[in-house]
């Protein structure tokens, strides 16, 4: 099935990695101004997972995410000005100022709403994929979640149900080794996450170095059979959160982790790796485009109106 997957385009992958990185750096830059009154969970350092996976998707495939989903939102093609406007609490935001950073949504690009409660969107992705399975058009759904979510009971309920019904779901664990500030050795009796998943009859593979091309290749290989009834698959993608759990800053002085942990991830930063592999002219053009898009998105957010107070009561119930 791998022959069916188009060749990865380094420029396109680099563009997405760069767009996410720079968008979040801008969020961190703006944050002290208090214009963004939303708890931001930055994906800086983790971009390669969302980018590698989403690059293997069709536009009409479906993605769900977590409170740390700026990356998957952008990688899936979510509207960038609407994301910034949402962070600013503006009426033009992707959730009209009623979601915030933790509840991004863009249904026109099939980004299901994200959730602040760990593990919550995993079964919802299953439900959506049940509808896709019945639709029979070969579409798939991807559930992004962190290592912490694999400790929730609902994760195992979801694995079982997806395998039982051979649902077209790709489970993607973004394992950054910390649930907030608690490292895996304090939480897991064994490290064998893929082994645990395989007992449900689900193919499970691990990418240990966050290589965006490897992630993309495994995603494509997993998804191709899924489109014709091959059932779910699981990817554990090791990655690393460079900034604090929530907020714009670093937190290596806080005591729960050391900067030494960060260094190998920074040396293997996929944005830098791909950028170095591109012709300088192409990279510069992409960089310029990224800056222009982000500046436009921020401008859009800053100049958009806040919701009218009466909007408080709209959409409590669907009419």
């Amino acid at each position: 099935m791998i022959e069916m997957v188009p060749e990865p385009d380094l420029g396109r992958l680099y563009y997405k990695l760069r767009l996410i990185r720079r968008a979040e750096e801008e969020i961190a830059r703006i944050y002290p101004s208090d214009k963004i009154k939303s708890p931001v969970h930055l994906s800086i350092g983790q971009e390669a997972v969302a980018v590698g996976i989403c690059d293997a998707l069709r536009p009409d495939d479906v993605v769900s995410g977590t409170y740390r989903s700026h990356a998957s939102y952008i990688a899936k093609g979510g509207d960038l000005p609407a994301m910034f406007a949402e962070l600013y609490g503006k009426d033009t935001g992707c959730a009209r100022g009623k979601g915030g950073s933790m509840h991004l949504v863009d249904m026109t690009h099939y980004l299901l709403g994200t959730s602040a409660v760990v593990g919550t969107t995993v079964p919802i992705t299953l439900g959506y994929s049940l509808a896709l399975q019945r639709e029979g058009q070969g579409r798939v759904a991807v559930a992004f979640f962190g290592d912490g979510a694999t400790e929730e009971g609902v994760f195992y309920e979801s694995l079982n149900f997806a395998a039982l019904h051979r649902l077209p779901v790709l489970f993607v664990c973004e394992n950054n080794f910390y649930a907030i500030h608690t490292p895996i050795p304090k939480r897991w009796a064994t490290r064998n996450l893929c082994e645990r998943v395989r007992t449900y009859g689900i193919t499970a593979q691990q990418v240990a170095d966050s290589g965006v091309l490897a992630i993309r290749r495994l995603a494509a290989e997993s998804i191709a059979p899924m489109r014709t009834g091959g059932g779910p698959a699981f990817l554990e993608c090791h990655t690393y959160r460079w900034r604090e759990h929530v907020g714009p800053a670093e937190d290596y002085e806080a005591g729960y982790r050391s900067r030494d942990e960060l260094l190998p991830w920074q040396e293997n930063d996929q944005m830098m790796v791909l950028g170095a592999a591109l012709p300088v002219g192409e990279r510069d053009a992409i960089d310029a485009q990224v800056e222009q898009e982000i500046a436009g998105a921020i401008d859009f957010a800053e100049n958009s109106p806040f919701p009218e107070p009466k909007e408080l009561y709209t959409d409590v119930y669907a009419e």
Partner: protein
Amino acid sequence: MSMPNSAGPATPRLLRYVDALREGVAQEMERDPRVFVFGLDVDDHKAIQGSTRGLPQQFGPTRVFNTPLSEDAMTGVAIGAAMAGLRPIHVHIRMDFLMLCMNQLVNMASKAHYMYGGSVKVPMVVRSMIGKSWGQGAQHSQGLHALFMHIPGLKVVAPSNAHDAKGCMIAAIRDDNPVIFVEHRLLYPTEAEVPEASFTVDPCRARVCTHGGDITVVGISNMLLECLRAQELLSSAGVHVDLIDPIWLVPMDIETIVQSVRRTGRLLVVDNAWTNCGASAEILARVAERVSDCPVQMSRMGFAATTCPPSPTLEHEFYPNPAKIALRIHEMVQPGVHWQPDLEKAALAYQIQFRGPF
């Protein structure tokens, strides 16, 4: 009780509550291919005490299917399927099991439409049944509708008769919001006239079941029947009751209750649940806010503030029953006047047809 109004060109016939539920679901499944039914044991030989009987044969395993014991994930599945445009009916044989669904119902189902800026809808029905008697005990007996009434974005309905069971079910399936559909085990065998044709009993429309004038009594779910029985006991005392069935608890037709209370000056709410922070508290509070210009005597009844015990003598004390309700009403309408319901009639009124085991 007076026959409910029905919309549509109907030939009423007597139907049991359980069959009315099933008929409502079946008619909607015929009408709308997006509707499906799932939950633990929906396709087994007991068929959720008969309420899903025949549906697997009629609609096949894609539209009626059993689930693992994974209430949390299955609720998420319902939400995701609903977001994708399907219309799931998720079935639980006891309301107590909904506690395993709370994260999905409270954090996602209720909020998705709002917190995603109106870009998704979650049209789903969560059916669950309150158990009673034959020692259902602590975890097969709870009436937890107030927990859901607290959450904006959820609708809550508790039909008390077969007619409303069908009409509310059809309305709930057609609703674009998550609806918590509260059934009661003891109502399952009760019969009412139910039109064969499809019809809806719409949200926010209470029904005045009897017009009395001495006191307004609101009965919720199975307690509506207990209130009707209480009213029969009271007939010898010359006490006449405006008996109101709210039917939909969210959105609730409080105005119908308020209009009655303005006439009677007295309000008793009898809930099939605990009173503390319950539906009865909510109804009294809302009425109080609206009739502050005239004095109203208010009271409420519900489960004893204990866990439900299985022993028959204790269980008898746990619930409001027709005699207790009649006495309370009498005390409110004719304070200081001694009255006792006919003991033989009171015993008959509380005869429960239900035998176990479940």
